[in-house]
């Protein structure tokens, strides 16, 4: 029983990280109607930037975010302007290919600069833990969780309490209408992509401190992130957060109760089960989607 509880706690803590990464992905989808299959690579890029910064400047991994988040934001604006904006026809399908190419490019460059050896972010407290009842909770997971909550909170505040946030939400609801009322949707899209990448940087730090990673690690990440945002409902931030928690908690519990072999499978079974009942996902709006 303790073990199940322990797995549930762990699921919530790691779920927070996935929630952050997935909300960036779903935001990008919502604003641009593109599936960013390169999001996993962006997370890994963020992890590597933090790795480089903490190594060369001797910073704490979490502190490197002060540098990496703005850098990744700028990079996001650049990538969106150069590669995503020119896509006019077949956006959804072509964007898959374009972002996939971006992922490959990032993987190649990271391999060139950092080699393909596994690395891991390191902090002096990364193996410290404290007891809670019968089990121990690790500080790093807790810090990561708190950080993700804080950034998610900031993102929600930005989206719901600022004018620019309102334009982003308007664009997510209806791009054409937003354009008609005078919103510069291209600018909104660029900023949204930048925010998506900045959150990927934050997710990357937590990912990189709890996992050993190399440039090829993005393949494992992206399939889970995509599953999460579909479960939550494409373009729904709330959905992404809740879906991430559901997924990770049920995965970790399956791993403990049934077998680790079926843990990842549960992930996809939940998705299929939910889609049978609600094809639009948990919080998705049933829109007349067209390609």
């Amino acid at each position, binding site marked *: 029983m*303790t*073990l199940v509880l*322990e*797995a549930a706690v*762990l699921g919530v803590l*790691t779920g927070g990280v996935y929630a952050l990464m997935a909300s960036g992905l779903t935001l990008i989808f919502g604003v641009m109607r593109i599936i960013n299959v390169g999001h996993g690579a962006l997370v890994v890029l963020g992890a590597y930037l933090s790795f480089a910064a903490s190594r060369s400047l001797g910073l704490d991994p979490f502190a490197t975010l002060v540098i990496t988040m703005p850098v990744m934001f700028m990079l996001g604006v650049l990538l969106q302007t150069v590669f995503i904006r020119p896509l006019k026809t077949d956006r959804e399908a072509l964007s898959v290919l374009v972002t996939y190419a971006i992922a490959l490019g990032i*993987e*190649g460059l990271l*391999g060139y600069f950092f*080699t*393909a*050896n*596994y*690395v*891991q972010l*390191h902090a002096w407290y*990364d*193996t*410290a*833990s404290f007891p809670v009842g019968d*089990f*121990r909770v*690790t500080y790093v997971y807790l810090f990561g969780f708190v950080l993700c909550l804080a950034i998610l909170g900031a993102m929600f505040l930005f989206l719901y309490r600022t004018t620019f946030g309102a334009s982003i939400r308007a664009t997510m609801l209806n791009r054409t209408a937003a354009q008609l009322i005078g919103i510069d949707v291209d600018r909104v899209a660029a900023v949204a992509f930048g925010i998506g990448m900045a959150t990927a940087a934050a997710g990357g730090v937590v990912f990189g401190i*709890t*996992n*050993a*990673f*190399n*440039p*090829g690690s993005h393949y*494992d*990440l992206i399939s*889970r992130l995509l599953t999460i945002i579909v479960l939550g409902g494409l373009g729904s931030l709330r959905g992404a957060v809740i879906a991430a928690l559901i997924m990770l908690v049920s*995965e*970790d519990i399956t*791993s*403990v109760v049934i*077998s*680790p*072999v079926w*843990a*990842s499978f549960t992930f996809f079974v939940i998705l299929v089960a939910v889609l049978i009942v609600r094809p639009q996902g948990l919080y998705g709006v049933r829109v007349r989607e067209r390609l």
Partner: protein
Amino acid sequence: MRRRLISAGVAALGLTLAACGGSTTPTAPAAPITIGVSISQSGDFSGDGAALKQGYDLWADDINAKGGLQGHKVTMKYVDDASSTQQVVTNYQNLITVDKVALVFGPFSSLLTIPASTVVDRYGYAFPEPAGGGPQVFTRGLKSVFFVQPAAVEDNLVSYTKWLLSLPSGQRPASVAYATQDDPFTQPQVDKAKSLLEAAGVTTAYYHVYPAETTDFTPIALQVANSKADAVILGTQLPDAVAFAKTFIQQHYNPKTIIETTGPDQGSQFSDKLGANTEGIMVPAGWTPAATAYGNDKFVSEFIAKYGGKAADISADSAEAYSVGQVVDQAAAKAGSIDNTKLIATLHTGTYNTVQGPMSFDATGKPQGGVGVYIEQWQGGNAIFVYPSSVASAQPEYPKKNWQ
């Protein structure tokens, strides 16, 4: 194409007949040759691919320094297989039929070695390979594959179980927790260790197989910790080897002994993630920088001279690749030729000395006899041989000290 190769082999034979033996200085230089290898520069196996390349390159430098392979100057040609079956199959066909390389060496992992081996066999080439030891490598009826490691994969943990059972009964672990990746490299060895230990009356506290693509190992590690077993045997690669250890540290779980199939043998790639907490972790290893095996001190010093770092940083992958070259060198000397047909016939007989110790091959290419795999343990920041005592440079540290 093959005809030309054979004639090159015959020419080499003629040249070296006069001065047979391994360390000959040929009277006249023979034609330079190229040796082709497909390695993974991207994808899942790219880390190991880089280490293999270092080992092969170092051997090529050595062999050229002493006058070449049977007088032939050696150039290595590397092509990338991106860790994909399709590309590895393409690469070996191209190396053999387009680049017309004289010899081919193996890629990383059983998963790529198996499809590559059928291609190489088809062209009558010998296929000495450093990293494909899964059971299926040897069950396909190929006569040209030679796995250049001290023991077939499934026997990797045998000496560890021997050591455990040799402990006085009061100290011997009463229970063991096992967890392994579902991988042709890791699972067979863990399963064999489990059956040996169970037969000797050691209880199994936990046993689980997890998929190779698992990314979050924490839940599994938690269960291992929760089993409170005295000993932990893990079938890992590098990322999970680190993840398990970290979770154990976080959970303050201190088993008396831990062994991981791969990871702790990867030098600095392992230690830079765990720091002082590598202390006491074991790994089955055919090779260690400190071993006194054939040419090992030379290998280690040259490796450091060429690539920098320190002895503890050298990956076993590099030593295994280097061994492939050593085996081929000796076989060529023995056959007096670099002709593949002769090499294949020669490699099936006799014993070959490598930095991993002496080895010989049976009809399927499985390493035979030999001393088998040793146990290496991290002590004071270095991985050193601790068992069997014939090769040990220190006593095994048992029980393992608590995490720091």
